[in-house]
């Protein structure tokens, strides 16, 4: 068992971890609760990824096939870890499919859950058909056609509302979801590309297209695709009798309330802790930080650690994370796991 790493979750982080484990000459067992691999980008049908611009099904698809074709990886789909015994070097996990996995170390790549906009009802999701989330809009982009779900008309105007389910103490979500600004700018460009007659407005309180995302997404969406950024956090979305949506805010630069008609309103939904985290914490005996994400161990010398020895984590399980960084962290966590096992072998000999 000291040659095996158990990886829970097969999103970008988990897939990256699995490949890193086998590349180091160890075996990986991947447990994924869904019937397919790929995690959020595949299951939610993301369109083009940030920042590569590759379609999710191609880019993450490559990661999936690399793992599926890897003889060093055993995959359990549609399964969860139900209980865990042992300690570093000799963990035994019982799976919901009846199988038992023994492994020397564990990587939790359990990711996140998209914020459910239904919890912010005044923004109209679930009330009006033309109020969508970014994931739904990405799915629409994937179909190659931009149309109002209510009646199929081509929208003249689309509003993207940032910070839906992020930075909002009213609903207990104090964190910034990090990537929505960039994703929204990207989405604005994709919409304009498919539907040049559609104008896209992004309502923001700050723009956080950090690092190299600045010019590639923020500037580009504005300069090349004429996306308009309006400094207003939206208060309420209602509908006017002609079926258009009315977006109510204060344009804080004009210092006036605004009530502006739109055809589609998109919620840039944030990243919640995986809704299974309480269960995951219990099964694996690890701690959660105060927002409900997996608690990170002291980071400087115990990189990718959790509160339990031999169990590591990575990616969005720790908190909102980009796909690229999740992939890197998956590799890092796998390295930590392998290093652990290596140390045990060294110690024994």
């Amino acid at each position, binding site marked *: 068992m000291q040659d095996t790493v158990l990886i829970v979750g097969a999103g970008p982080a988990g897939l990256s971890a699995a490949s890193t484990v086998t590349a180091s000459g160890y075996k990986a067992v991947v447990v994924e609760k869904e019937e397919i691999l790929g995690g959020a980008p595949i299951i939610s049908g993301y369109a083009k990824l940030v920042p590569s611009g590759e379609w999710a099904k191609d880019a993450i698809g490559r990661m999936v096939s690399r793992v599926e074709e890897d003889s060093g990886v055993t995959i359990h789909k549609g399964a969860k870890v139900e209980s865990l015994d042992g300690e570093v070097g000799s963990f035994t996990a019982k799976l919901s499919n009846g199988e038992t996995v023994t492994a020397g170390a564990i990587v939790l790549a359990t990711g996140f859950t998209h914020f459910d906009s239904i919890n912010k009802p005044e923004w109209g999701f679930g009330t009006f058909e033309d109020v969508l989330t970014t994931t739904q809009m990405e799915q629409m982009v994937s179909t190659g056609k931009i149309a109002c779900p209510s009646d199929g008309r081509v929208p003249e*105007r689309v509003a993207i509302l940032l910070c839906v389910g992020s930075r909002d103490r009213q609903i207990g979500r104090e964190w910034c979801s990090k990537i929505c600004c960039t994703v929204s700018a990207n989405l604005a460009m994709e919409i304009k590309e498919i539907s040049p007659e559609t104008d896209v407005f992004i309502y923001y309180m700050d*723009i956080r297209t950090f690092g190299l995302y600045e010019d590639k997404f923020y*500037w580009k969406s504005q*300069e090349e695709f004429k996306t308009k*950024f309006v400094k207003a956090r939206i208060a309420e979305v209602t509908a006017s009798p002609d079926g258009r949506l009315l977006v109510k805010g204060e*344009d804080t630069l004009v210092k*006036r309330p605004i*009530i502006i008609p739109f055809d589609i309103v998109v919620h840039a939904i944030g990243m919640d802790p995986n809704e299974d985290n309480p269960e995951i914490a219990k099964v694996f005996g690890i701690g959660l930080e105060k927002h409900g994400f997996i608690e990170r161990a002291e980071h400087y010398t115990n990189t990718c650690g959790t509160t339990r020895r031999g169990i590591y984590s990575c990616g969005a399980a720790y908190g909102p994370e980009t796909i690229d960084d999740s992939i890197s962290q998956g590799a890092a966590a796998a390295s930590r796991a392998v290093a652990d096992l290596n140390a045990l072998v060294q110690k024994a000999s």
Partner: protein
Amino acid sequence: MAIHEKSLIEPDRLQTTESLVVDGVDVSGSWNTMITPRYLRDYDDDFEKTIQKYGGGENVHRCWQCGSCTNSCTMYAQNVQFNPRYWIYLTRLGLKDEIVKDKDIIWQCVSCNKCTNICPKDVRPEGVMKALAHWMEDQGITEKSPSSHFDETFWEEIYHTGRIEDAAVMMGFFKRTNQPLVQEWLVLFGQRMMKYLPVSQLLKMGLNFIVTPRTKSWGKTGEVLKAYVEEQKEAAHG
């Protein structure tokens, strides 16, 4: 009944009928006062494109509202209402009514170009203000500015003669702007010219002023040029 917060309401949003009886009830004055709301109801999606077609407005869409232009502005230091960043924002969203409220100050831009120099995204705010000023003139929102009058006199002269005769342009400008043709400084200027310039030169100038010579074989060039400029303008602004 007094509206205490009256100073918080722009006067043109107060509706009051001084003397009014409705259904037999006297509701004169403040009893019938209503206030019209101040919220913004829509954007004019085409306005940004309109301004981009004016010289100087091309890059208005690049603005991200950092405020460097306003911070560096010579006029802003004099008058905080003079706010290029704000006008650029209004232009982008097509909030025309708000821009028009500042019609009497936008033209005060002194073209120092500090804003254009400092702008991190090459918006060229100075150009945007010019574009806005011209748009307002075209719409009849503002009177033509003196500089526009000068510009037009200047070009009329060129179309007509293919060259510039300073005195004629100046007189034309004075006429258009209803200024007296004889001005104190001009008289002084003339006296000094007479004192220092050779007589032949003075005679030539006097003659040119009276007959306004044209460039050789100018012919219909002026008309063609004028037609072309009109055409270009038409194409740009519709």
